[in-house]
């Protein structure tokens, strides 16, 4: 089918590309401490992208009986399409990365149910008032990319994941904590224990409620690994996104090779980490994957580019193209890897007289992310007083600018933890985050 579609398109247009996916996923869900639902999802579809007279036409369908319409549709679209700043690449050597574990597709439904039940029971043993949700599942997918320049490549990827959430209500005070992990490899007790420990720690630290600060202002803030993801990652990555760089919106536009943040900060996009969610041998346009330095010891590396944005900037693609079935490729991250530092996390807390730990945010992404700004409600965070966590903060907002904050790094923890299997980060202690809290 892909061959005939490509042949039909290639004979009509200057260039053509066919992208096909097939996926199945099998999640089981627990709600309010009980098994609630078992699902099976099958997804398949095909997308056609063409370049004709220098313009791009894009169309897709999940309806196999309408695949024959795609060439006609692309022909109707291409005359109005955006200008192509690239040509489709030819075949090349791809690196190997381990993203298939045959054991994943062999996981029995009952084993996933037992895993979920076990996690929930272990939490309820300690906190009988909790209401827990959990989701455990596996999926397998196969993608195939063909283009008129000769690429015909595909790969299979498996995925296993587990997430666990817990809710505790006291009066009108509601606490929600959660943790999750995913990998292309089957994982067992060690990772599940780590999830439980994360949830337990959040519950323990939230036992009391604390006032963020008597007055509004700046405090030293420790961002835990999920806190780094929630607070800094999006505004930072918008500066590295090739689209924002190509259209002049990125504040990093002319600063590549310059020191932009503290030299203890190194951040890579690395699709070649075995087992990570998001790893892949090549991107969704057939460009080989590589480890890409976004920030190396405080110095801005380069933007994440797909074919179009690379062409617009007269550079070459960094293999950062991602796509869904119904959307054209665009540059994005694969697996984010942030270098660890040299301070023990507990010592970090012990060294702060008055400060905040930020774990999760509510409403991030509503501010001016393009300029590197962030602001959000701290949905899960804790107050530090005299080197100890004294309780959870509520009705508290943080705001700041990611470039300023990462220039005022005080300490970086000595271990980097996985956050949902597609980001690995240490805890980062920094200044420059404004804290506003409702007064009691």
């Amino acid at each position, binding site marked *: 089918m892909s061959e005939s579609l490509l042949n039909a398109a290639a004979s009509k247009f200057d260039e053509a590309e066919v992208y096909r996916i097939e996926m199945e996923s099998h999640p089981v869900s627990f709600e309010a401490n009980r098994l609630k639902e078992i699902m099976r999802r099958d997804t398949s579809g095909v997308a056609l992208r063409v370049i004709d007279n220098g313009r791009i036409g894009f169309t897709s369908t999940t*309806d196999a009986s309408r695949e024959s319409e795609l060439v006609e549709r692309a022909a109707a679209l291409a005359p109005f399409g*955006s200008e192509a700043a690239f040509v489709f690449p030819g075949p090349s050597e791809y690196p190997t990365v381990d993203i298939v574990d045959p054991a994943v597709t062999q996981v029995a439904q009952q084993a996933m149910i037992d895993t979920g039940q076990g996690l929930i029971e272990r939490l309820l043993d300690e906190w009988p008032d909790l209401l827990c949700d959990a989701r455990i599942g596996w999926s397998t997918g196969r993608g195939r990319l063909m283009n008129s320049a000769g690429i015909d490549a595909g790969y299979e990827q498996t995925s296993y994941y587990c997430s666990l959430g817990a809710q505790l209500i006291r009066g*009108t005070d509601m606490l*929600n904590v959660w943790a999750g992990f995913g990998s292309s490899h089957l994982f067992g007790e060690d990772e599940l224990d780590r999830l439980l420990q994360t949830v337990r720690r959040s519950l323990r630290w939230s036992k009391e409620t604390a006032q963020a600060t008597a007055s509004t202002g700046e405090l030293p803030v420790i961002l835990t690994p999920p806190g780094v993801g929630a607070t800094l990652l999006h505004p930072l990555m918008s500066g590295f996104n090739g689209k924002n760089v190509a259209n002049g919106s990125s504040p990093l536009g002319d600063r590549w090779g310059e020191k932009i943040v503290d030299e203890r900060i190194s951040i890579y996009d690395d699709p070649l980490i075995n087992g990570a969610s998001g790893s892949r041998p090549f991107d969704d346009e057939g460009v080989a994957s590589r480890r890409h330095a976004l920030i190396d010891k405080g110095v801005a590396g380069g933007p994440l580019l797909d074919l179009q944005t690379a062409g617009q900037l007269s550079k070459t693609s960094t293999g950062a193209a991602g796509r869904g079935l119904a*959307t054209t490729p665009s540059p994005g991250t694969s697996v984010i890897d942030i270098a660890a530092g040299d301070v023990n996390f507990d010592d970090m807390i012990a060294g702060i007289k008055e400060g905040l730990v930020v774990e999760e945010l509510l409403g991030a*992404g509503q501010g001016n992310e393009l300029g590197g700004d962030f602001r959000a409600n701290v949905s899960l965070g804790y107050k530090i007083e005299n080197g100890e966590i004294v309780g959870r903060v509520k009705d508290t907002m943080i705001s700041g600018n990611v470039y300023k904050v990462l220039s005022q790094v005080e300490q970086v923890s000595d271990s980097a933890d996985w956050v949902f299997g597609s980001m690995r980060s240490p805890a980062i202690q920094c200044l420059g985050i404004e804290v506003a809290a409702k007064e009691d």
Partner: protein
Amino acid sequence: MKYSDLIDTALKGHGADYCEVRIEETDNSRLTYRGKSLENIAQTSGLGGNVRAVSNGGWGFASFNNLDELKAKVADAVAQAKAVGGSKTELAEVEPHVDVVPAHIVHDPKEISLEEKKRIMDHYNDLVWSVDGINSADIIYGDTSRKTFFGSSEGSYIEQEQVHVVARISAQARKGGDVQQAGFSLGSQGDFDLIRDLDDKVIDAAKRAVALLDAKSLESGERTVILDPVLAGVFVHEAFGHLSESDNVYENEKLKEIMYLGRKFGGKHLNFTDGAAIPELRGSYKYDDEGTPATRTPLVREGELVGRLHSRETAAKLGESPTGNARAIGYNFPPIVRMTNTIIEQGEATLADLLEGVDDGVYVRNWYGGMTQHEMFTFSSGEAYMIRNGEIQEAVRPVMLTGNLFETLKNLDGVGNDLDMNQGGGCGKGGQSPLPVSNGSPHIRIQNCLISGA
């Protein structure tokens, strides 16, 4: 009735307590602009379906793109439901309906050529760029047609079509590392003309973005805020609406104790309503995705909680009537309890009445986004202006507002007389986003609202 026989045959002898099939056909067009030029133009189509079954209170769900062997997929979903089992199936009674509901069409986007759609959006893109100081335009136009074919083991067979048109136009201005943006969103069911004649609005947005570069940031803290109808609509959606979705409550004893019917949330001026039966809005429909007829549900009357939103399961488990709020964004998701058109009913105050006596406040307009987690909510304005001596004064940079439902509703002390609907938003929940909804309100005033201005 296109899939009636197919679904009927597949459901025969299903073996669960209840089983349903939903098939969906979609056609979408989309144009996006970023930077100076058209970024993307695409036409996509979809076909998919799902089977949902419940047995002894446990749910099974199977979704697919290939409609072959539908009977085997029914068997899969039923087997999954049985593997969950363990309790009792409770679904509120709904009379089976057989119906064909055509799309609500005013000016059909399907009858407008792609060339014309592009010509109109090109023009707005040019307008944004005609304003000095603009760094980028972000423009999205999309139209979708979604046809659903729903059949259940209780004998319902319902075909429904919905056509939605959405547009967002946003302008960016930049000075060094400072990037500011301003824009607006629009949406309609079945009316392409919504996106015509927007020249003044587009130029205004572009000018606002440029002006924001020189506007001051407010210091964070608590202030009196007055919300325009658009942002007040987002407020009622985020702060109250999500907690009135019964799937949060029905298996949660503690939350039931908090969200009991009759609970007093504020003064007599608080009257909230949700309903897909309110006609011709983005969240309007005749039947929800479980085949339950749409209703209009009073949520708060004179400050008291009087109702909430239901699926058939949550209604049965709470002993209340189904409200027709079970919605799925697409065939690959089961329906969950969602809002439709959510409204703060209007009061008597004029904007001048609300402004009177406010000496150091903020007038916030237009939305940028919002999120909620149970009683906690945050949402962002698209515009903000100082209020001094009861007058709206200079623009400041947009702010984020945050709070706790229970306290904030007590502090909501003024409701205007100028109800207006916001049709440009979409709602996200459980990975299903953006679901077409609308919300509306008159101007409202909230005392001691925590805002972040940075």
